[in-house]
C-alpha cells in the first residue's frame, strides 16, 4: 500500500514536471501556483478550538480617533503636511454602524467628547489627559488598535497578550456567568464561546475609566460589549464589536477592523517587558498653568457678556 502510494506520487510529480518543461507556459504556471498555495482552511487546536494563535495587529492601527483611524504619534507631522497644502485622505471610520461612521452619542455625551477633544493639545484639567498617557490599561477594544498582540489558546481559555504595558486579557470559555455587578474592572469581565469558527466575547463589568481613543470617545460603566473574531484566512482575522450603552448612546453601534498576522518571518518572537507607570513622570506636567489662566479668563469674559 505504502509503496503504491509513493509510486503514484512519483508518477504524478513526473507528469507535473513534464508539463512544466514542455507544457503550455502560462497555463502550467498558474497550475503550479494553485497547487503550491492550496486554499486556506481553518485549523483547530488539540481541544477543538479554531486556531487563532500567533501575533496580530490591527490594520489600520492607531488609537488617535476611532472615527478617523490613525496613530497619535504621527499627528504633528501630519499637521505640518496639511499646513503645507497637502490634502489628507482619512481612512474609513472604524464605526461601521451607524453607516455615517459616527458614534451615536446622546447630546450631553457628544458635548463631553467635544470638550475632551478640544483639550488634547492644551489640557487644563487632569481629566483632559488621555488615559493612555497615564499608563492605564486600555479597557475594552482599544488595546487591539493600540499595538500588536499575541493570541494563545489553551483548553478552556483564549488569552490576549500585549507587549505594550504588559497588558493581558484572559477569556474563559466555560459559559460561567459574569462576576457580580459591584465588581468593576479595567478590562471588564470577559466570557467567550465559539459560534462556528467565530470567537464571541461578551464583556460586562467595565469600570469605564479607560477611553476608546485619544480624542475622548468613551463608554460608561453600564456598557455591554460583544466582540467577534473570525479568522478569514491564514493572515487575517475579521474583528467586530457591538457596543450597547443606553446611558451614553441613542442606539447600539458597531466597530469593525481587520487584524493581520505579525512577525511572520520570526515565529519565535518573544514578548519582552514593557514597564509604563514605573517611568511615567510627565502626564500632569502637560497641564500648563498659562493655558489654564487663559481659559479661565476667556470663561470669565464670556460670563460677563451674558
Amino acid at each position, binding site marked *: 500500500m505504502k509503496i503504491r502510494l509513493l509510486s503514484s506520487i512519483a508518477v504524478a510529480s513526473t507528469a507535473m514536471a513534464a508539463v512544466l518543461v514542455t507544457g503550455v507556459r502560462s497555463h502550467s504556471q498558474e497550475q503550479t501556483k494553485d497547487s503550491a498555495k492550496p486554499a486556506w482552511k481553518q485549523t483547530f487546536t488539540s481541544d477543538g478550538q479554531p486556531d487563532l494563535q500567533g501575533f496580530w495587529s490591527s490594520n489600520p492601527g492607531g488609537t488617535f480617533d476611532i472615527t478617523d483611524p490613525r496613530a497619535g504619534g504621527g499627528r504633528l507631522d501630519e499637521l505640518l503636511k496639511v499646513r503645507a497644502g497637502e490634502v489628507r485622505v482619512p481612512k474609513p471610520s472604524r464605526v461601521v454602524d451607524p453607516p455615517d461612521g459616527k458614534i451615536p452619542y446622546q447630546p450631553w455625551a457628544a458635548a463631553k467628547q467635544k470638550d475632551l477633544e478640544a483639550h488634547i493639545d492644551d489640557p487644563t484639567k487632569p481629566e483632559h489627559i488621555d488615559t493612555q498617557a497615564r499608563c492605564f490599561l486600555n479597557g475594552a477594544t482599544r488595546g487591539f488598535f493600540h499595538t500588536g498582540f499575541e493570541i494563545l489558546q489553551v483548553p478552556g481559555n483564549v488569552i490576549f497578550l500585549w507587549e505594550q504595558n504588559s497588558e493581558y486579557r484572559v477569556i474563559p470559555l466555560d459559559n460561567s456567568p459574569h462576576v457580580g455587578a459591584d465588581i468593576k474592572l479595567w478590562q471588564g469581565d470577559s466570557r467567550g464561546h465559539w459560534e462556528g469558527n467565530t470567537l464571541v466575547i461578551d464583556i460586562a463589568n467595565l469600570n469605564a475609566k479607560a477611553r476608546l481613543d485619544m480624542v475622548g470617545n468613551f463608554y460608561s460603566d453600564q456598557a455591554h460589549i460583544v466582540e467577534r473574531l473570525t479568522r478569514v484566512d491564514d493572515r487575517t482575522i475579521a474583528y467586530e464589536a457591538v457596543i450597547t450603552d443606553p446611558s451614553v448612546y441613542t442606539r447600539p453601534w458597531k466597530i469593525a477592523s481587520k487584524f493581520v498576522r505579525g512577525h511572520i518571518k520570526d515565529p519565535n518572537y518573544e514578548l519582552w517587558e514593557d*514597564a509604563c507607570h514605573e517611568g511615567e513622570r510627565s502626564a500632569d506636567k502637560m497641564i500648563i498653568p498659562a493655558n489654564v489662566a487663559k481659559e479661565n479668563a476667556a470663561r470669565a469674559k464670556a460670563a460677563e457678556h451674558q
Partner: protein
Amino acid sequence: MHTHFYFFRRRAFTVFSLLTLFAATASLGAQSAGLGAIPRTADGKPDFSGFWQVITSANWNIQDHRAEKGIPAGKGIVVGNDIPYQPWALAKRQENYKTRETADPQEKSYIQGVPRITYTPFPFQIIETPKEILVLYEYVHETRHLYRDGVDHPPGHIDWWLGDSRAKWDGDTLVVDVTDFNDQTWFDHAGNFHSDALHVVERYTLTDADHIDYEATIEDPKVFTKPWKIDLIIYRHKEKGFQLLDYEGYAFDYEKYYP
C-alpha cells in the same frame, strides 16, 4: 496599603486553612487508594495550570518578624533566617527599613521583581503552553513569560523589573533562571534589597495537585557575601468560579478624574 493587603490575607488564610484540611483528608484517601498523582500536560510534564497564591507574611518581611499594626507576625521564608549582607549593604538595609513607608517600591505600585511577586499577597494564574509557561499576576497586571524553547538569555545586561526568565525541566521540577534585573525592587517591605547583579534560580515542584514547593536561590555578588535561599509553599485556589480581578494600584489616585 497594609490594611488592604492584610484583610486580603486574612480572608485568604481562612479559606486556605479549610482547603488545606480538605486537601489533607483527600490526600490520605488518595494515598490509600494508590493515587495522589500530580496533574500532567499531554506531553507528560507537570501541569501548573490554574490559580495560585501564597499564605505567608513574607511580603512585609522575608525574615522572622513580630507583629506590627496591620502587619501579622510571621516566620520568615529565608532558609536559616540570616541574609549574608556585605557590611555596607547591611547598613543600607537598615536605612531602607527606617524609610520603608515611602521608599518601598510597592508603595508606588511599581512592578515587583522576582521573587517578591510570588509572595505578594495577590492571586496569579499559570497558563502552560509548549513554548512557554505564562504567569499572569493580578497585582498591577504583571506578566512573566517563562520561556522554555531552549533559547538562552538575550545578550548584554538589560535593566528589567521582572528580569529575563528561561525555564527548563529538572525531572518534574521546573527550574527558572532569572537575570537582567534593575536595582529598583526590594525583596519585602522591610527593606531587604539587591543590585542589578541579582541572579535568581527558582524551582517549582508540584508536591500534589494543589501545592507547589517554591524554592529560590538568590545570588548577588555586589550585595551579599554568598548565595542564600528562600523556601515557601504556593497554594491552589479551589473556590468555584475563581478568577483574576484587577489591582491597578497606581491608578487609584486618578480614578476621580475618569468617572
